[in-house]
Structures are given as C-alpha cells and as structure tokens.
C-alpha cells in the first residue's frame, strides 16, 4: 500500500512540476502567428508544387497574409479559391490569365529514331549520355521525366511524346523546370493556337529528321492578318496578345506544325485505356 502511495505521489509531483514548466514555457516563448495563415493554407490546394515561386503552400500563405502582396497568385488554385482568399484578407488579387504548360514538340512517331538506347530510361540520363535515339536534337525524347515530375498527374507519354491534359494542368511549372531540353513552355490557356516545334534548324535539316517540324517557310507569317506570328529565324511562334484564333495559319502550315487545341482536344483518356497506348518507359 505504502509503495503505491509513494509512487503515485512522487510521479504526480513530477508531472505537476513538468506541467508547470511547460505552461510557463508556452506562455513565455509563444510565437504569435496570424491565425489567418493557417486558414489561408487550409484553403490552398496543398500540392507544394512551388508554382508561385515560393517554397510551398505554407510559404505562400505567410507571404500573402503578412506582406499583403497582391501580385502573388497560386497557379494551382482556381479562380474561386483565389477570390475567397482575397475576400478573407480584404485584398484585390488580379491573378492574371490562366497559364498552362504546352509541349513544343509533336515529334514522337513522326520523328526519325536511330540506333538503340539501352541506358537509364530517363530523359536527363539520355541527354547526359549523348546517345539519344531521337535524331532531332531539340525534340521530345519521350522517356517521361515530366510525367513523373508532374504533381497533378496531367502528363502522359503517348506515342513517345509528352502530352499535357490542359484541364488538369494548373501551370505550376514543375515540368518546365524538369525537361532537360526545355521543350515545355507556359502559354495562356485562352490562346489555343501554338507552334508545336522547338527546332531552330533550317528547313532541309528539319525535313531529314521530322515530318511535323517547323521548316521556317514563313507561310504562316504571310497568312496572318493580325501580326500574330513572331518569326525567329527558321522557327515560328504565336504572339498570344495578337492572336484572334482565325486559324488561317493552322490551315496554311504545310507541315501541320501549328496546332489549335480546343477544350477537349488534348484531354487524356481515362487511365485504364490509356495504359495500353502509353509507351511504358
């Protein structure tokens, strides 16, 4: 009986003292944090993709609550979420146009491949080994580094080429940073015309390795009435601000390099049927 009493009293005393110490410490060393940060973080998608340019969702919430920085925008959140956050903080968030990633290549099976590549099946490793089977030195190799990197599962490798589901893409830029050939570019979601080629080589050179590459013929530039084609030497690009989606360039392009993507044209099929089509690397 005595032992139980001594034990419970001594342990009880220790617990009391420890509790007091903790209580004092929590009062004395308390970090005052704006409760809004937690609330804003709760509202964010929580992908920690880094698309806003900060370290993660927590950092974004801290920045927007503490600094009232209206230029910040979470690319992964939809308009409503951002409006809710703005309302909560009493801010006017401009947001800007929705940006999506687009792959500036449609080579894949249209492009010539040579030799065997038995190295590690990632794009970065293939580039390091200088042994890419794709003859085009600028095109998509299709080993799927972007597919593995995408935190939103918006990328599939179909016919040896990366295809982005624009409805799933939130514009976080992770794939843009991952692609060792810098093929993926952020473009406004609303401008649905773009040049799907990345090769600045001259026409005859491009013809040798790809049937859908930009040969720099300037036909699109001549066809466009709105000055919406920026023509770098031997590679066209669409100026989003000027484009009216008249699709004259899409019709004129002899190599079918300029693409028009309607809302569902790029939508990737459901996973099950997609597996068969995906070249698994």
């Amino acid at each position, binding site marked *: 009986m005595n032992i139980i009493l001594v034990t419970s009293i001594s342990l009880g005393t220790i617990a009391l003292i420890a509790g007091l110490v903790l209580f004092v410490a929590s009062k004395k060393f308390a970090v005052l944090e704006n409760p809004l940060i937690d609330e804003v973080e709760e509202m964010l998608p929580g992908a920690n993709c880094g698309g806003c340019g900060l370290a993660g969702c927590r950092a974004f919430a801290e920045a927007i609550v503490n600094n009232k920085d209206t230029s910040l925008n979470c690319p992964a959140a939809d308009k409503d979420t951002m409006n809710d956050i703005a309302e909560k903080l009493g801010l006017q968030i401009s947001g800007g146009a929705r940006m999506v990633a687009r792959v500036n290549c449609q080579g894949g099976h249209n492009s010539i491949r040579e*030799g065997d590549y*038995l190295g*590690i099946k990632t794009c*970065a*490793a293939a580039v*390091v*080994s200088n*042994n890419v*089977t794709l003859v085009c030195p600028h095109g998509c190799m299709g080993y799927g580094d972007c597919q593995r990197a995408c935190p939103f599962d918006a990328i599939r490798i179909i016919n040896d080429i990366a295809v982005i589901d624009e409805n799933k893409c939130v514009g976080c830029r992770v794939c843009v940073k991952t692609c060792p050939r810098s093929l993926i570019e952020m473009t406004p979601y609303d401008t649905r015309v773009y040049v799907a080629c990345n090769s600045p080589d001259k026409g005859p*050179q491009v013809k040798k390795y790809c049937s859908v590459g930009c040969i720099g013929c300037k036909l699109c530039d001549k066809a466009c009435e709105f000055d919406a084609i920026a023509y770098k030497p031997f590679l066209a690009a669409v100026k989003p601000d000027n484009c009216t989606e008249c699709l004259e360039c899409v019709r004129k392009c002899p190599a079918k390099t300029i693409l028009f993507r309607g809302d569902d044209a790029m939508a990737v099929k459901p996973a099950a049927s997609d597996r068969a089509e995906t070249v698994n690397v």
Partner: protein
Amino acid sequence: MKLFTFKRGGVHPPENKSLSEHKPVKSPELPNRIAINLNQHLGKPARPLVKKKQEIFVGERIGEADGFISAHVHSSVAGIVTKVEPAMTAVGILADTVFIDVDKEKTAEELAAFYQQTPADFTQMTTQELVEKIKDCGIVGMGGATFPANVKLSPPPDKKIDTILINGAECEPYLTADHQLMLEQPDALLNGLMIIQQILGVQNTWIGIETNKPDAIQLLQQKTDTGRFPGIQIAPLKTKYPQGGEKQLIAAVTGREVPSGKLPFEVGCLVQNTGTAVAVYEAVCLNKPLIDRIVTITGFVNSPGNYRLPVGATFRQVIDDCAGGFRDESRVKTVINGGPMMGKNVRNLDVAVMKGTSGILVLSDTEFHYEDEGPCIRCGRCVDGCPMGLMPTKLAIGAEYNRPEDLDTVMDCIECGTCSYVCPTRRQLVHWIRLGKPIFRNASGS
C-alpha cells in the same frame, strides 16, 4: 622485373586482344568521300575555314581553333569540298562537318611527300617554335579525351613539372593500336618524347607498358639502353584495368596522388599517350598535321586488325573496305567507338573516324549481353573495384533520387566503367554517376 601498379581497386576483364594483336598496320584504299568533323577535340569546336566547291590539299587547315582550349582541324585528303553542314559525330553530338570529294591520286602523292622529306632537327628549335608547331598541326591527346596537346605542354609557370609519363598501357580490352604503334614506330615515339622533354626542360620520362605486351617492353628497353634517348625509362605495369588512367598511371609509377579536383601538374606530372608522342614527332619533324591515326577494328568483322585511317572516313567505309565487312550483319548488336569499357556505341555507321577514335569494336549477339538493371544489393563489389576509392553505389543512388548531398565526391569519378562491369545486378552505375555530375554542379553552383 619490378612491376608498377596502382593500389586501389581495379579489375581484369577478359582481354580479347588476340583478334588483332601483332597484325601489322595497314593503310586502306582511300574512300571516295570523307566527312571531317570540326569538334574533334575537347573544348570549343573549330571554326570552318573552307567553302563549298573550294579545292583543298592534304593537310590544309579547314577548321581554325576557336578559343584557348580548342585545336585546328586539317584535311586528310586532297579534293573538293562538297558542303559544310552540321552532321552527327561519333561522340553523339551534331557538329559542323566538312564533306570532301577525294582526289585519290593527288592525295596519295601528297601523303607520300610527308615521309620522303628529311626530318627536321628539332634540337635546334626553341620551345616557343616547338609548341607553335604542335598547335599549328592540331595535335590533341590521342588516348580518347582529345585534350589539345599544346595547352597541356604549356603548364602554368608556377607549376614545375618533373616527370613525364607516357601511357602505353592500353588497358582497354580488344584494343591493340598503341601496342602495334610501339612495335612499328619506336624511333618516332622516342623522338617525340625527346621533343616533349625539350619543351618542358625535363629529363625524366617513364613509358608505362602493361606486361601483356612483353615484346613492346623489350623493344623499347633495347632502344633506350643504347643511350641515344637520355632520360627515358620503361615502367612495366601490372596488367590491370584501368592502369592507363591518368591518375592511376601517376600513382603506379611515381606513387603520387593527384588531389581531388586538381590536374596532374599539381603533383609535377604530365601524362601523354604514345599516339600523341608520335603525332608530336611527325608534326615537328615532318610538318605533318594530325590527319590520320592508327585504329583497331576488331570484334565481329571478317579481318580484324590495326589500320592507319584518315580522319573523316566513315565507320561503314572502314568496316567494309578495311576489315572485310561484318561477319554476319544480322547478328551485329552494336558498334562501339573506342573500347568496350569506356567506349560509346554509335547511333549509325555514317559517323566518321575522329582524332580520338582508338578503336572500332563490333559486338555480335554472343558477346553483347544486356540485362535490365536490378536493385542494389549492397554487396560492395563496386566499392572494392573503384580505382578512385569512391562509393559508386552511394553516388548512383544519390543521382537516382536527386540528392546532391550524397554526390559530394562525384566529380572525382573518371568514368572508367569498373563499377558497372563488376555489378552483379547489372546496375548502370557509370551512367547514373554521369547523370549525378550535372545534378551536383547545379546544386553547388546555385
């Protein structure tokens, strides 16, 4: 006989040198067309100097060195330039390439003229003149790394070089080009070394030769014993891969260790390949630019052997014309530029022989073996084998999972391939480590 060797790691893969060993160097018939790449050296590619339809002669400079670490490129034939455009090279990158239609008679005449003249006396020339000549002739290291020789031979003035090492180890399996070169041109080799000694003002040269080439050791020993070549000694090396690696050779012969991230001149050494020494001799005494080289064509071909090939002949031409073609084209699995350990397979056979092509190896389905890589089983064989004392398994995993903190020693890797060779689960360790290098550079740079 005292044998020199490096201490750490190393392997002894099957040599397979008997296919082409002791086959005298043959000069094949000239091809009709050749394609000379302008990036045949480490550093910046050369700038093209010729235009379409221009007539050129043997040894004419067609590419000019662009920058400090770069080298001139010369025409290996006489003929007419058909075009200058980017083309795929044997190292797998696109580079400006000069295509030439060959005038065979004129080429043969002009090539013979190089050897008919009396060799110039290099002892009368100043160091400046010698280095200038080597630069003009576009000499690069012919072991495979193709570092411009004139840059290597002008070390920073505060670094005193006291030992010159010549790599005649030829530790790569299959290759016999350097062996045959030592047997056939010992005088040119030794005179080339005298020139290098004169440039650096050093009288201490070691020629490292693996003991699987006893005849070469004996021949060069006899030559040096005559006393005509003061300062040159022979270092018999234990037959072990990678005995011919720059840092391994220094460790084997001098016992010195090159510090991490430093170049051999930090420990007073300079390493050159035997082929480079001969090229230096020919450049200085015969004014002959680096326009041909000895290449071992071996493996699954009808007549494997050693051939003196003009720079710019395509792989298909030389395999068909010199080596008698593939034994059975349908069974050929891969064609490698270089040896099996460090060489790289070529994407197609239209790529051209370059200054750094030491061998063309054709592997058939019986010799070529590929398995998908398995997981690391932590057996530590790669750690035991690594001649640089690294932990390839850790580096590979660091590269695979993008962990720069695990890649701190990655830049010391010489990519010799020992770890990939010994790995029981066929992990592609060298490839992972190669991928780890840019990851580490980016992480430590930013």
